């Protein structure tokens, strides 16, 4: 199979390849989910611009919960703002 860089005209065949670019490094604030409070309602998931929230099974809980993929989370905190159960808080990112 040809590689993207071998193709003429700037055609890209590695679809979805921005996923290589971990935008988590941009984050200044980190959203943190309080799994106790999270009802798994999924509202945060709908509004995350990065699509980096999934509502899924988490160890220790029966109901699925909000899970954030910090590889991509840019720290906009929309999830925190929109969570009706105040289940998300923020901390300053420190690496």
């Amino acid at each position, binding site marked *: 199979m040809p590689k993207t860089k071998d193709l003429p005209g700037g055609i890209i065949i590695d679809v979805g390849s921005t996923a290589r670019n971990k935008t988590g490094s*941009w*984050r200044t604030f980190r959203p943190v989910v309080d799994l106790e409070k999270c009802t798994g309602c999924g509202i945060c998931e709908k509004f995350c611009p990065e699509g980096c929230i999934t509502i899924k099974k988490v160890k220790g809980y029966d109901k699925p919960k909000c899970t954030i993929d910090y590889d991509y989370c840019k720290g906009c905190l929309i999830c925190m703002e929109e969570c009706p159960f105040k289940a998300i808080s923020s901390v300053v990112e420190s690496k």
Partner: protein
Amino acid sequence: MTMHEITVLGRGGQGAVTSAYVLAKAAFHDGKESQAFPFFGVERRGAPVFSFCRISDEQIKLRQQVYHADYLLVLDAALLDNVDVISRVKEGGTVIVNSTHAPDKLKSAKGINIHHVDATNIALKIIGKPFVNVIMLGAFASISGLVSLNGLKKAIDEMFASKPEVAKLNKKATETIYKSMKN
């Protein structure tokens, strides 16, 4: 002829470009020739961005990018994870990082001097917001001696002419840093 090249590394939205511009103005007020320009990407807020400044005693004709700076200012220590800073500094050059502690990830090589200053803390204290881009120049001025504090103040006034309050606080914080480094 002595010409010095300075690179500022920050995140989109953090004002790295403004920082280089203020520096160019400051140097000019000190009677030097100067030039500042951004490296323009298409990244939005949050992504790493560079900007550059040249300071010289004579007219600056050179218009290439800055590849190996005499001084490199890092506005956000977290960027050190992603950006190879050392490769962008001259042998014997200087890196100044905004950090509470000496950046352990940054291994000095090529005789490079590494400084740090807790600009965020000072910014939060004095300006009330983590605006470090301009005030980091206080550290630069102090360490390099290439611009005067007065020149910086004039440049800040000019840059924030429409926002005198912002100018005032920035000058204050700059001075604080400048003096703290002098000690």
